[in-house]
């Protein structure tokens, strides 16, 4: 009796342990998926509105994160201690920097090329080169920019512990912020006048111009919006990992781009789905597959390739009325 009770207790413990471990994997995956989704949303926005692929998006994220770190170092040196004030300053500054960067890119690189009817490939190439330039600029101009930089832990510490599960409060806050950003963006696009104008441009550039929509202003706004989301993703990334480096945008850009494509480029829900799918694949490779962990990206990208072969226009196929 006693023996069997103990055995039963042991099994219950084991189940709880495994459940906790499993939940931990899910939480890690969700956090990563959120960052991927935020990056993918940017890609999908640029493509939906302008039919362009902006390859420098990942590096804009890096610039956003480093802008945040810069203002933190300045603010900390003049002695402001309240983490919330610092956070707001970081967000405002970093969003401003990337939004401005986005506007400059749109105004001086994308719109002129668009107006000259340059092939889409040229815009892709130009943003690819811009990305490299941004990345190297961060490395060269930020003091000791080649090394990993500590990003301050500004959110309240502490964690909810259950066996193997450690659910950190800052992770919950960051995840909630990501959700809020996506909801806000969705509302902006579907419920506001600006959003309607963006949708109109996305659907038919020429007609929207005839209807009195200021095309250039809408393109600028779209770029500022997408870049601002990249900055937020960069800050979330920095606060979550407490570390940023000049190459962080490279893989995030590749993953975000794949996520946007697999979801259905131009579709907001598709980007979110793609982001979480990619993180899910990576986690699956680590937890379930009997392969060395170093192959997790090989596995995830491999599955994406197969999925694209199966659904060439993405999981949520784009129709013209669904753009953005």
């Amino acid at each position, binding site marked *: 009796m006693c023996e069997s009770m103990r055995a039963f207790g042991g099994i219950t413990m084991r189940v709880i342990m495994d459940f906790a*471990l499993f939940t*931990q994997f899910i939480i*890690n995956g969700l956090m990563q998926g959120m960052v991927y989704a935020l990056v993918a949303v940017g890609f999908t926005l640029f493509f939906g509105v302008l039919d362009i692929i902006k390859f420098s998006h990942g590096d804009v994220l890096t610039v956003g994160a480093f802008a945040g770190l810069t203002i933190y170092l300045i603010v900390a040196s003049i002695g402001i201690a309240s983490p919330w004030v610092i956070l707001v300053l970081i967000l405002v500054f970093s969003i401003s920097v990337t939004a401005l960067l986005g506007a400059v890119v749109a105004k001086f690189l994308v719109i002129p090329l668009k107006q000259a009817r340059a092939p889409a490939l040229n815009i892709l190439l130009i943003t690819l080169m811009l990305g490299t330039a941004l990345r190297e600029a961060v490395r060269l101009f930020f003091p000791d920019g080649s*090394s990993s930089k500590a990003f301050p832990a500004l959110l309240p510490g502490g964690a909810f512990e259950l066996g193997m599960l450690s659910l950190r409060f800052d992770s919950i806050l960051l995840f909630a912020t990501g959700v809020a950003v996506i909801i806000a963006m969705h509302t902006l696009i579907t419920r506001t006048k600006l959003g309607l104008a963006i949708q109109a441009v996305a659907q038919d550039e020429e007609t929207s111009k005839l209807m009195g929509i200021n095309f250039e202003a809408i393109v600028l706004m779209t770029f500022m919006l997408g870049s601002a989301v990249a900055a937020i993703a960069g800050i979330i990334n920095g606060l979550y*990992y407490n570390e940023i480096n000049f190459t962080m945008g490279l893989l*995030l850009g590749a993953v975000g781009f794949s996520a946007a494509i697999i979801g259905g480029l131009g579709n907001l829900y598709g980007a979110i789905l793609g982001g979480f799918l990619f993180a899910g694949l*990576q986690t699956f490779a680590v937890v379930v597959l009997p392969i060395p962990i*170093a192959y*997790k990206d090989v596995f995830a990208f491999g599955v994406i390739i197969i999925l694209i072969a199966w659904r060439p226009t993405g999981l949520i196929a784009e129709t013209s009325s669904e753009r953005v």
Partner: protein
Amino acid sequence: MKLKITSVLVVISLVVGTSSATADVIKVGFIGPISGKLAANGIAGRNSAELAVQIRNADSHTQHKYELVALDDECKPNIGVQVATKMAADKDIVATIGHFCSAVATGAVDIYHKFGLPIVVWGAIAPAITYGNDYGEVFRTIGTLTSQNETAIKFMESRGYKRVVMIHDTTAYGAGHQEAFATFAQTSGVDLVESIGVTADQQDFTAELTKVKSHNADVIYFGGLVDLGIRVRNQMDKVGVDAQFVGVSGIIADTFIEGAVNAEGSIAMRQGAPVEDMPGGPKYLKLYEEAQFDNPPEAYGIYAFTAMNVLLDAIEKAGSDREAIKDTLAGLPEKDYAIGPVRFDSSGQNTFSLITPVVVKDGKWVKVE
């Protein structure tokens, strides 16, 4: 016709110019990561090599004047092969010291062999650099990573740590550490529960670390370089892994302490000892300070200083012939240098190697008490 005459004149002047330069000055090389992620170590190495050359030139007993040619391998294997070729193809350079990064040195040794350029490796510690070939041109003053792992096991045993999970990068450096550690672990009281290979630029380790958590490990043993080490250390806290972090020598840098939020208490295996504890450490530090370089000597500058001194000793005996320098290096009698005694075995490896466990305490890497 006019053009031809001028070009002939140019050729003549070039020939005269170079031959007059070689007559009184012997050129020696330095290669290391002067830019890029590990630039701090590369610059410290170059400065230390320069220091060794300056001291030698100021010595009245010296038979030759020396000039240092420093090239940058950026810690990238492809660049390493390029600069190694450039160095080896330059007939004026009689020998070189080179490389901080194992992956770079491993690829470049073929070049030195092909061109017959003697090289003393100053900072790269993968065993294969000396033991993976039978090139007579390749020598190394610093110990190999094998001895680090032997010390790491002994250290863990002395602390009573039983269960170890290793996270290592899959380059020659990380994989070399893994291999050595796994070999020593077999005959010890330490149980290597799992080894997890990761790519050298990976950003997220939460999935790997959650797996580590399920193993209830006493120690996470990290085999890789400082950037990756920072990430692993930071993310241990994120998933609540409560194990001792022990790293290989690649994480010993001030950037680890600046980059990791909870660097305090992290342990690493230092190749040699803290500079001030080495036989010629205090003297070297004093000389380095007097030379007023812009950058600090870092942990490994003294190794470049030693490698250059060993090389210059050989050239003093052998003259400027590459072949003669090679033979002289191979037959150098045991002698004390700044890092301790140096004598090469038949593979060109220094037979003496000292490893010291160090810990981050009050924001500094110090010897474990």
